[in-house]
């Protein structure tokens, strides 16, 4: 990658697309300005779950254990982006690990689990997420992980292990069956190595439990049995929204602190109730927030509030009104299709809002 001074001089002469086309012939992960990473290792972690080890290029940012990252790959011609947790800890060689569980009908998770090979290139976003450890962790910690909620908590566990486990840590990890447990062998080894680390697997649908395994959904009895006294615990919970909500209400007022991340996406408005609904729209470029109805095109709705977005044919033909939908679900009035892919361009004259939106307007 060119040093920054050279880049500055060269920038006016460089078309990033053309530059990337040629350098990718030398190394598919090289780019003028895009954060790309090459898959250098792939291992099956558990049933329907794969860990990809990535070698990022110089445009990829740093991360802190517990954070997520947007991963983009092209599936059936369409760039598809989802967030995944980084499961490793920052490494000297810069490599990143992502652990991905295949979701039923999940476009990107299926692609990453079943089709992505060593040598493929993925695009990465900047790492984000607040569920990280303080610089000097102390006290008692309780990690509650359900399903793929293990991923950020695995990164945090590994980080604590790398610091020789300076705190008392209990990890309770719920999975449907034993075959779906990720990192089981490594976690058991850590539990043996560090007396301050207590590990508990909970299998919800396993027919026969082995010694040391629990079963059943999260409950106060279960927490009392496994953890004992909660009052000194700093709790991090991660899993489906239902699990996270249960964990919150079960520990509320009884623990030192509680932080959680849930990952069930916001359900779009169904067409039946779309006629009367209003949603919040954030216009990122002009830093405005407003509410618009979902029964008008976004263009008509914005104009009704006195805004004057760039406009052309008003019939979906000319693409003058195209803007980037950073977040949210919209409905294409021509095809009747809903779409929530972040960073996609939409023609606002032919698009209605389905959820709260962030637009690059």
């Amino acid at each position, binding site marked *: 990658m060119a040093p920054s001074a050279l880049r500055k001089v060269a920038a006016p*002469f460089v*078309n*990033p*697309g*053309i530059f*990337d*086309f*040629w350098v990718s012939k030398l190394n598919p992960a090289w780019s003028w300005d*895009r954060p790309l990473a090459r898959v250098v290792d792939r291992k099956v972690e558990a049933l329907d779950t794969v860990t990809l080890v990535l070698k990022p290029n110089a445009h990829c940012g740093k991360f802190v254990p517990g954070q997520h990252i947007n991963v983009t790959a*092209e599936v*059936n*011609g*369409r*760039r*598809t982006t989802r967030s995944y947790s980084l499961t490793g800890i920052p490494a000297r060689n810069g490599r990143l690990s992502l652990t991905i569980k295949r979701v039923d009908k999940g476009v990107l998770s299926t692609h990453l689990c079943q089709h992505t090979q060593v040598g493929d290139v993925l695009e990465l976003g900047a790492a984000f997420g607040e569920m990280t450890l303080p610089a000097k962790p102390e006290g008692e910690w309780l990690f509650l992980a359900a399903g793929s909620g293990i991923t950020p908590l695995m990164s945090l566990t590994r980080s604590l292990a790398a610091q020789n486990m300076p705190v008392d840590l209990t990890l309770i990890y719920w999975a449907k069956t034993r075959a779906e447990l990720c990192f089981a062998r490594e976690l058991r080894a850590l539990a043996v190595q560090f007396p301050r680390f207590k590990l508990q697997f909970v299998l919800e649908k396993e027919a026969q439990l082995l010694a040391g395994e629990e079963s059943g959904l999260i409950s106060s009895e279960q927490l009392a049995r496994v953890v004992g006294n909660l009052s000194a615990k700093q709790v991090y919970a991660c899993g489906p929204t239902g699990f996270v909500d249960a964990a919150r209400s079960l520990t509320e007022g009884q623990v030192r602190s509680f932080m959680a991340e849930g990952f069930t996406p916001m359900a779009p408005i169904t067409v039946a109730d779309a006629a009367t609904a209003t949603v919040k729209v954030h216009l990122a470029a002009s830093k405005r927030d407003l509410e618009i109805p979902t029964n008008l095109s976004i263009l008509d709705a914005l104009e009704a509030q006195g805004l004057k977005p760039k406009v*052309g*044919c008003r*019939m*979906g*033909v*000319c*693409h*003058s009104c*195209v803007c980037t939908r950073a977040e949210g679900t919209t409905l294409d009035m*021509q*095809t009747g*299709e809903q779409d929530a*892919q972040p*960073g*996609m*361009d939409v*023609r606002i004259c032919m698009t209605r809002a389905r959820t709260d939106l962030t637009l690059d307007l």
Partner: protein
Amino acid sequence: MSKPTSRVLSGDELARFGAEIDALRARTVADLGERDARYIRNVYKVVRYSEILGRALLMVAWFLPEGWVFGTAAVGAVILGLSKILDNMELGHNVIHGQYDWMGDPVLNGKNFEWDIMGTSDNWRKTHNFRHHTYTNIHGMDEDLGYGVLRLFPEQKWHPARLGQPLYALIFAILFEWGVAIQDLRLGRWLTGRVTNKQMFQISRPALLKMRRQLVKDYLIWPLLAGPGFLVVLAGNAVANVIRSLWTYTVIFCGHFTTDVQTFPKSVLKNDNRAHWYVRQVAGSSNLSGGFLLNVMTGNLSHQIEHHLFPDVPANRYAEMAVQVREICARYGQYYNTGSMVKQFGQVLWRILRHSFPSSPQRAMRPKMAK
């Protein structure tokens, strides 16, 4: 031979015609995927390799034994010209229409793509994507009807200076990329003093920057890289740019200026709807019949009718959509204007010649507009 006419559709028929075209679009859009992505990436790849090949031949030409210089440079210039044609038409024009926006690839994004031609893509988005495609062939709305330079229809005012039109048409063809670049600057208002020099400079700034970039690239940097071969590269680039202009001009003129295309008065916009718009796109456009190579080299404007019905559907789909469009048009009695490039361009040349002389809309036999 009597002029082909399109049946005037009743309100009900018009609605059904519109619905069938809508359904064809929906079917195609629902099927977009890997194959279309691979197609446009292959086009991008061919543009890149042919550009490098053309430029490399021009660079080395000077250093070859004497008998080889001209031949190598000529081949290089032609290849570079073809590369620019592909870049402007099958790649740039189609990508800038947003045809591949569904891929989400920043390199193939309609809003950001910039092409290897004098005009800015921003300007094109306005004059072409919006005005020409929304108001196709409507007098006073679609400036592509003669580009303010040529009189191609009897509805346009005649002036004795029009007698020189065949010559203007030739000059315009050679300088076509420049014509497109300044189309939206409306220099007339500056020449007549309605816009001050300073205002004009402000308006022209993006266009001037793009022109500078193109000029510096083709006539300074690449020639300098060839050292003593400076002039060979400079001349080769000029030839390539003119080849591109001549070809794009020819293809584009075949799209709307053949004998049987219809033009429309502004009044069609009263009580307009999508089905009317579809009918006008068919009546106002003409196709070129040919095979894969013609389709690619014309940026699929060989399917001008399909392009006008579906400007933001990937052009690589037009050939298969054309079969269905043609069938729908036949059922609704809508004339589907197609013919060989020789035939269609012959008609264009006749139009340029004919309307350099006085002509009037009453005298010209004109098919009735379906409305």
